[in-house]
């Protein structure tokens, strides 16, 4: 029997736990040429800001043999165009919209939350406090527990009560559990982890940095073990807080690994650049993985790696 893949995100029931990761699917329209966006759990939009933003100069991308670097710099049309064009399109296609927001100040985040709360149809807000591609590293709120809490508190105060607020965390910190606790105390309904890690590539022929922005966010399978560790640590400390897990998920097995670590939803990012139908494929593969293990409900495997008695699948005999 096909496993039950339904998961809850706040008041919304998602048909399955597979989402797009912010920044890797724009606002869903381009992917709709390749997959049915209403059949994945949700579309998490590219982070929207108050004003239009041109982003960073090119080159913006560097592929290395151990992950890719991006330095896009939050290019986007701004909240007005998003509300006018992108959100209505997503809803018209029957997709569930998780809107990622980014700002330079606490007030900007709060205003974005207010604007989204006035619009109908936002399934959740993901607060991007961890984009590494900003002018000043000091702006990365997610590197400081108090700064993270200030943003989350302001967003929670302005967001409509029935819209869950997820804080997206950076792995570039000494103690991600401390940041997670701080966000949850400030009112976060859930956590998204992980954002990219700050990295750099230098062209040994031109002797110059590859990216025009010098540094960029590292993503892809290279960072998956870090994502698994972060999700596992936070789940162990805060077992009741829902987690959207992301970081180098390329296959259904990878998605299952993050579920076992404690994520209850999985976002697919860099894989989309490699395969525009990655979300649909990973969903199919996850379904197969669960079926093969005789799992009836996906919720049974969430955090199962923490259970030392092992509730899932046949145990290997030694």
């Amino acid at each position, binding site marked *: 029997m096909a496993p039950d893949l339904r998961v809850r995100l706040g008041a919304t029931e998602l048909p399955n736990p597979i989402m797009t990761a912010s920044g*890797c*699917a*724009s606002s869903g329209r*381009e*992917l*709709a*040429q*390749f*997959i*049915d966006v209403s*059949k994945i759990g949700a579309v998490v939009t*590219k982070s929207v800001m108050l*004003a*239009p*933003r*041109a*982003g*960073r*100069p*090119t*080159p*913006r*991308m560097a*592929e*290395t*043999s*151990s*992950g*890719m670097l*991006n330095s*896009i710099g939050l*290019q*986007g*049309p*701004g909240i007005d165009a998003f509300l006018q064009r992108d959100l209505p399109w997503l809803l018209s296609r029957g997709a569930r919209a998780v809107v990622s927001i980014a700002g330079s100040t606490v007030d900007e985040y709060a205003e974005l939350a207010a604007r989204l709360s006035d619009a109908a149809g936002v399934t959740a807000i993901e607060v991007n406090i961890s984009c590494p591609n900003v002018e000043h590293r000091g702006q990365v709120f997610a590197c400081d527990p108090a700064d993270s809490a200030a943003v989350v508190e302001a967003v929670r105060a302005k967001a409509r009560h029935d819209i869950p607020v997820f804080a997206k965390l950076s792995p570039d910190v000494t103690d991600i559990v401390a940041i997670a606790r701080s966000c949850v105390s400030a009112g976060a309904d859930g956590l998204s982890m992980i954002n990219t890690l700050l990295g750099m590539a230098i062209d040994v022929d031109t002797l110059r940095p590859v990216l*025009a922005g010098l540094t960029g966010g590292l993503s*892809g*399978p*290279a960072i998956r073990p870090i994502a698994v560790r972060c999700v596992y640590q936070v789940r162990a400390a805060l077992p009741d807080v829902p987690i959207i897990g992301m970081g180098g998920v390329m296959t259904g097995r990878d998605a299952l690994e993050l579920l076992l670590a404690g994520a209850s939803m999985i976002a697919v990012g*860099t*894989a*989309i*650049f*490699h*395969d*525009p*139908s990655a979300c*649909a494929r990973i969903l199919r593969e996850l379904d197969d993985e669960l079926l093969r293990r005789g799992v009836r409900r996906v919720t049974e495997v969430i955090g199962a790696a923490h259970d030392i008695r092992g509730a899932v699948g046949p145990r290997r005999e030694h």
Partner: protein
Amino acid sequence: MTAGDHESETGPQQVRGTVLTVRQIDAYYAITIVAPGVAARFKPGQFVAVAVGGPDTSMLLRRAFSIHDVRPDHGGTVEFVFSAGGRGTRWLAERRARDVLDLTGPLGRPFPVPRDPVSCLLVGGGYGSAPLFALADRLRERRCSVDFLLGAASGDRVFGALTARRTGRSATITTVDGSLGVRGIVTDMLGQVIHEARTDVIYACGPMAMLRQVTALARRYDIPVQVAVEEAMACGIGVCMTCVLPVVGSDGITRMVRSCVDGPVFRGEQVRWDEVGTIPFDAFGAPGWEPKVRRAESSKRAGNGA
């Protein structure tokens, strides 16, 4: 949910296509893949984005290639030309018949073709000439005349010189080392060719530096020019925001547009060549950018003060 649910008559497809042949042509490789849906939808100037490296590869980004040719055999095939200079293209060059490649296409905006039978000059640099031959066929269907101007560093890097000579009303070749045609670069010969061919429209594809110079010269002769840019891409479908360049819209506003979906073909004069690789200060959403109305007011104020 299969890809089939989302097929449209004109939109791109993601297909697993079987490799028919991989041929070495002088300094380049040409690979032909069975991809009926892509072939049926193709218009000259469009491209495919190919996944390279096989399963579990660290090559996460698709490689984008202009479509050189489509043919009806095996239900429809697509051919593209590449230089095996990087990890991904070396892997592609090692493919053999019956291997399977994952490709998306046709992607991007094609070359617009004139309504009237006019004199067209097709300018190509290196293997940038690859998409020009399908365009030439299409232009001739419209009873346009086609002249070629192709150039590269050396004779073995001029792609399609023979086809150009065989099918063009005229074909001018330039090489930097003088090993084929005239010694020099294409822009050295552009004025002369325009004059002799009484060129009405220019189409160009090749390195950015060449496109920039072709645009500048076309402007001097007041001839419209359509360029297909070669910006580094990562996804080819418009989601990654890697391949942006500053382009002036019909409203006069410069935007950082994606060359994969808003291009790769642009009107030459719309591209701000001097600022490619930067964010122009007046680009939509640049730091300190203001809506046009307010900017006009503030410049008026500045003007009054001067």
